């Protein structure tokens, strides 16, 4: 008894090698996920900064801080940066890249080098867009409607169009990688209906990424060509049709919102199962609904054109289909609620965010149904009602889902626990700030305040002041995680492989995982979320 066997600490993906080259030339999906995390966080604060200035401007009804031209540029850049450089890549490229191979029991994605390429493409696209921002901004709105964007606007439209065209390839490569990986790299025993619901969501998201993004690509390409050559399809002087642009643009941009929300829904499924310690109610239904949302989401784009001049027949068809697409989402909400029912609930930070998601997404989704109704849409189209609707879905839904996922998998990614107290405080601040910011906007829109206007009748000022007050609270809520999550890297408790005692293959390896994810290929022998069986076996 004279020697002591010291435990050997195995190397993780973080410290397997050092140096900036080993990170910038990595093909490890986990490191690529971190690279994306840094990039999209930067872009989030760029887009958020634009929003902050906009809300400050909207405190007063008569343009105190800036002229209309500047305001146009702010909401355009806010939209462009948030949609393409934060919302679309956030969960897929950060959490998806990190977690999908782990959940599959695989050593990496199917095409690791394409994965790294997708990040570089993202950075290049972001560089073009930020350059356009510095070069004076763009004033067309993130929707680039013609003929203003092709003929009348004098801003750097082509630069931004190129930036978005480029970043589209990043999306396509990511989606391609996920589809192929989920088909071909599942661990032994991991059949389709044993997949965690996060993977079903990522699969559905990837279908949209792959099929919709190229149409955006060609649309923006034609926009750029038309702007440069001064001839094209969308030019009314030639007999061209601006509606064609809108049809092609929204064919992508509507499914794009499902790209944004489906991953969030996947996260919510995981978080609720873990913190209610119950299998997700109606697993098969939830999985099928993910795919249904992806498919149906392609059939409804015309609802963005209701007042643009499309035929009444087309408007009717798209209206009915838009009602239909709400059904699978609603089914999911009921299933999550049923999962919570009689579960052993711990109100941890991720679950707080997930609960926020369910409530806020439902509100946003219901207001989407109002917008799908033709008569109401005539009243509220292009008002703040629409703005409130999509912010409830995008911020109340998607960003909240992203925060849930970030907190849920933070221990896996970093090996550290964050401060639960601060996590809960931030979640509550975000919830309160969010509702104070965006609920008044429903009322403003219904009362008639148009979107994209910074000069408005003085009657609307009170609600605008509430909204800005809420935005300042929301901003605090988003800065807090930046602080305490970073702090956890130094002083957080060491997490261990499975701090939540959750099911799923990602929790069967160390936190952080080793470079090749698993010491040996895991085998799956039962359904996901088998919490009841685990309880019974204790």
């Amino acid at each position, binding site marked *: 008894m004279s020697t002591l066997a010291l435990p050997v600490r195995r190397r993780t993906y973080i410290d397997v090698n050092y140096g900036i080259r080993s990170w910038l030339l990595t093909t490890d999906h986990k490191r690529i996920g971190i690279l994306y995390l840094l990039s999209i966080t930067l872009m989030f604060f760029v887009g958020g900064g634009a929003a902050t200035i906009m809300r400050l401007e909207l405190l007063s009804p008569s343009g105190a801080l800036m002229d209309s031209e500047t305001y146009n540029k702010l909401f355009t850049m806010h939209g462009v940066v948030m949609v393409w450089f934060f919302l679309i890549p956030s969960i897929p490229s950060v959490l998806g890249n990190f977690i999908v191979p782990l959940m599959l029991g695989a050593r990496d994605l199917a095409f690791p080098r394409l994965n790294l390429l997708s990040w570089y493409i993202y950075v290049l696209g972001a560089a073009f867009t930020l350059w356009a921002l510095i070069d004076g901004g763009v004033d067309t709105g993130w929707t680039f409607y013609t003929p203003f964007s092709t003929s009348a606007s004098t801003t750097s439209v082509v630069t931004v169009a190129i930036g978005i065209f480029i970043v589209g390839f990043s999306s396509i490569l990511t989606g391609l990688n996920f589809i192929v990986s989920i088909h071909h790299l599942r661990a032994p025993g991991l059949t389709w209906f044993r997949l965690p619901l996060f993977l079903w969501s990522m699969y559905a998201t990837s279908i949209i990424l792959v*099929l919709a993004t190229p149409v955006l690509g060609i649309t923006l390409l034609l926009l750029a060509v038309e702007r440069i050559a001064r001839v094209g399809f969308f030019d009314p002087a030639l007999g061209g049709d601006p509606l064609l642009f809108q*049809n092609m643009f929204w*064919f992508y941009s509507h499914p794009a919102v499902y790209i944004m929300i489906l991953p969030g829904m996947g996260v919510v499924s995981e978080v609720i199962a873990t913190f209610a310690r119950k299998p997700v109610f109606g697993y098969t239904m939830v999985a099928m609904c993910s795919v249904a949302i992806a498919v149906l989401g392609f*059939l409804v784009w*015309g609802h963005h*054109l209701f007042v643009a*001049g499309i*035929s*009444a027949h*087309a408007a009717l068809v798209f209206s009915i289909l838009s009602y239909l697409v709400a059904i699978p989402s609603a089914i999911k909400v009921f299933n999550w609620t049923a999962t919570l029912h009689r579960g052993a609930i711990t109100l941890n930070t991720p679950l707080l965010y997930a609960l926020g998601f369910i409530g806020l997404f439902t509100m946003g989704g219901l207001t989407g149904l109002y917008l799908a109704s033709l008569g109401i849409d005539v009243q509220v189209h292009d008002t703040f009602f629409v703005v409130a609707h999509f912010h409830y879905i995008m911020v109340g839904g998607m960003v909240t889902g992203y925060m849930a996922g970030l907190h849920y998998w933070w221990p896996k990614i970093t090996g550290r626990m964050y401060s639960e107290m601060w996590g809960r405080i931030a979640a509550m601040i975000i919830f309160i700030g969010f509702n104070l910011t965006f609920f008044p906007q429903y009322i403003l829109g219904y009362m008639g305040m148009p979107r994209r206007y910074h000069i408005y009748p003085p009657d609307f000022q009170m609600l605008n002041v509430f909204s800005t007050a809420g935005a300042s609270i929301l901003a605090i809520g988003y800065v807090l995680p930046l602080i305490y999550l970073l702090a956890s890297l130094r002083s957080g408790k060491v997490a261990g492989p499975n701090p939540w005692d959750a099911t799923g293959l990602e929790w069967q390896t160390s936190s952080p995982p080793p470079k090749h994810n698993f010491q040996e290929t895991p085998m799956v022998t039962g359904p996901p979320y088998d919490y009841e069986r685990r309880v019974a076996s204790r």
Partner: protein
Amino acid sequence: MSERVASGGGYVAVAVVLLVMTALNIGLAMIDLRGFNSVVSLLIAAVEVVLMAVYFMHLRWSAPMTRLVGLAALLWLSILMAGTLDDLLTRGWLPVPGK
């Protein structure tokens, strides 16, 4: 690895068929087919595309999922086509002023 290798002669045969079909397409375009010219030429092109996919691109040996991918792309394209054309072709159908 066990993977099927086609015969070189087979590829040549397919190429010859494609060349003949292209010539046919061009030839038929010069004849007045009473309104069916477009349909016929696109049909011939479609057959050529299928031949290329099945023989040159080995779709006949591919997994069913791979073939489904090809079909899915065409299906999605037709969704875009259908929606856009629905608007274009039905303007004025319903008694709603201006639509």
